[in-house]
């Protein structure tokens, strides 16, 4: 198959400047050279391609839209394009980068002390350290306000008890950003690998995100010092602020998966012949699916660009991001399903990336705020009435 050229039905590129296009091109080339050749085997074997981490650090992918401490200082549109290209490779790889940048580096930069920033950010940016983000618990997913993990003050230290689950990068992480309940409210803590009382284990049997590590974290009288608390993190809204960053990246990322599915299906239907030796792309039902996909991808691109421009102007809020994440993930998943349909039986085998994207996108639909929760965020924004309970 020819190399990936993206999808640009509506001259969306005319909305991008030269630097943005160069960022996309260099990321696309990296994915083409380094990810595409290995990702099928990684996915099949359930292997996390850790060997790519230093290279991605060298490229500047980790915390790319953050400034200082060794971060690349990209705009949010540039960051979005990086996510798009990475997720065109694989959602699991994009998840690794999303978590590292938006859920670990962002809170350390935003809520951390100067000492914490200096200690962690340069290494996280280079990929010399990996981080994870512990918010979700076995009993509390969409409703994190119910969390039961506690942090109890004991002199100059804190004692953590509880369990976190569905944690991307958990067992490979050198540092975990952990959210726990204290008498003063929810607070964020930095827990380093090897801290006594802190244990991690992988979740096995995943039929999605197989090239990414997903884990559970457990804290049993895990004692950390006050200097490992994020001093500026006050309440659950600090944790949700991180999620907004990550969801923004997801809204862009899934465009890449959708584009890959669409392009695979478009090219396949142009050469696959059936009935009268004609390509199936000449059939109206096939064209309807292609037309739907390219239209929805284009709308998703416009949504993403507008959100990116708003974010660069500091005018993007969480309810905008809910629309971006919800719409684009559902759209990408539908593109994967339609593309699978167009490839017939070939759609289910790993010669093509479609089934892998489809399985991954089922996770993406759920994590970082489910489709339902984002619907309710949008619903609350337009009615003023919260309908979560």
């Amino acid at each position, binding site marked *: 198959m*020819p*190399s990936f*050229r993206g999808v640009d039905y509506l*001259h969306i*590129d005319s909305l991008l400047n*030269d*630097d943005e*296009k*160069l*960022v996309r*091109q*260099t990321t696309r*080339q*990296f994915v083409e050279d380094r990810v595409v050749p290995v990702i099928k085997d990684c996915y099949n074997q359930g292997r996390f391609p850790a060997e790519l981490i230093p290279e991605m650090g*060298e*490229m*500047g*992918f980790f915390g*790319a839209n953050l400034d200082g401490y060794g971060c*690349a*200082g*990209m705009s949010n549109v*540039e960051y979005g394009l*990086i996510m798009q290209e990475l997720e065109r490779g694989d959602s699991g790889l994009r998840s690794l980068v999303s978590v590292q940048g938006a859920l670990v580096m962002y809170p350390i930069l935003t809520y951390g002390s100067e000492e914490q920033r200096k200690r962690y950010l340069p290494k996280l940016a280079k990929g010399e350290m990996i981080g994870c983000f512990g918010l979700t618990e076995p009993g509390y997913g969409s409703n994190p306000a119910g969390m039961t993990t506690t942090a109890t003050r004991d002199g100059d230290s804190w004692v953590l008890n509880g369990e976190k689950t569905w944690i991307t990068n958990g067992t490979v992480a050198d540092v975990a950003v952990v959210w726990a309940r204290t008498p003063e409210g929810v607070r964020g803590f930095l827990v380093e690998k090897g801290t006594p009382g802190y244990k991690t284990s992988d979740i096995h049997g995943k039929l999605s995100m197989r090239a990414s590590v997903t884990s559970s974290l457990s804290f049993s009288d895990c004692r950390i010092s006050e200097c490992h608390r994020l001093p500026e993190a006050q309440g659950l809204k600090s944790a949700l602020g991180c999620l907004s960053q990550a969801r923004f990246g997801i809204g862009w990322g899934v465009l890449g998966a959708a584009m890959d599915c669409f392009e695979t299906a478009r090219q396949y239907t142009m050469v696959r012949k059936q009935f009268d030796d004609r390509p199936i792309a000449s059939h109206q039902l096939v064209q309807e699916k292609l037309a739907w996909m390219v239209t929805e991808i284009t709308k998703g691109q416009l949504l993403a660009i507008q959100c990116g421009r708003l974010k660069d102007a500091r005018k993007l809020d969480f309810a905008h991001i809910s629309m971006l994440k919800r719409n684009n993930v559902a759209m990408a998943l539908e593109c994967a399903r339609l593309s699978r349909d167009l490839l017939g039986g070939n759609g289910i085998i790993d010669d093509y990336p479609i089934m892998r994207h489809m399985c991954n996108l089922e996770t993406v639909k759920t994590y970082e705020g489910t489709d339902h929760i984002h619907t309710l965020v949008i619903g609350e924004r337009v009615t003023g009435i919260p309908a979560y309970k």
Partner: protein
Amino acid sequence: MKILVALKQVPARDSLLRIDASGRWLDESDLSFEINEPDAYALEAALQLKEQHGGEVVVLSAGPERAVSAIREALAKGADRAIHVEQENLGEFDTLSLAKLLAAAASSEKADLILTGLQSDDLGSGQTGVIMAELLGLPHATIIMAVEASGQGVRVKRELEAGWFQHVSMPLPAVLTIQSGINKLRYATLMGIKKAKTKEVRKLTAAELGVQPESSVSLLRIYQPKRVKQTQMLAGAPAEQAAQLVEKLKFEARVI
């Protein structure tokens, strides 16, 4: 060592190429562009020499305003600064004019080494580097596979035909035209892209360089190559097919 890299922006290799209404050039409206491939290898060779021996890499490109994106990419990969000879419709002029522009811009730089690709992916005349060397009065070597700086000069490996190579030692300053694929191209990192924003791109015009581009050759028409290969299916029993095949090989292909 001060190294000048002359590079050209050309239509990207995987673009859908459409011929414009004049029939003399491509429709550029939805074309994407990239650094000419052999020039990208020339840039990489220059960056590697700088890493080994220190110095400066200066990018020189002649082309329309859009060529600045190729220049920015080169700066993002590590070139120190750039000179952009801004000139529309360069393709309408001959290689001598282009070489005059480049030589005029290069002359004040007094570079130790000038590298460029051996030819361009669009027009492919393969002359620009060589004519530029002549105009500058510098020694040159073409189809270079490897460059080693040694003492006051360079030792280069030239590609000849049929797997033969020639090793040449030459004095500096010199002009080398670089073959594609001789090294591993680096990526423009995000930090590099960010840093490139602050690097100098000096703009020059043909008038400022005292060059009047002209054309001693004219491009009459470009066209998509016609498919000339044909497949014929031979019918009949195996013996009949064999007889037909022999007939065709004798009288049509004339190989037996």
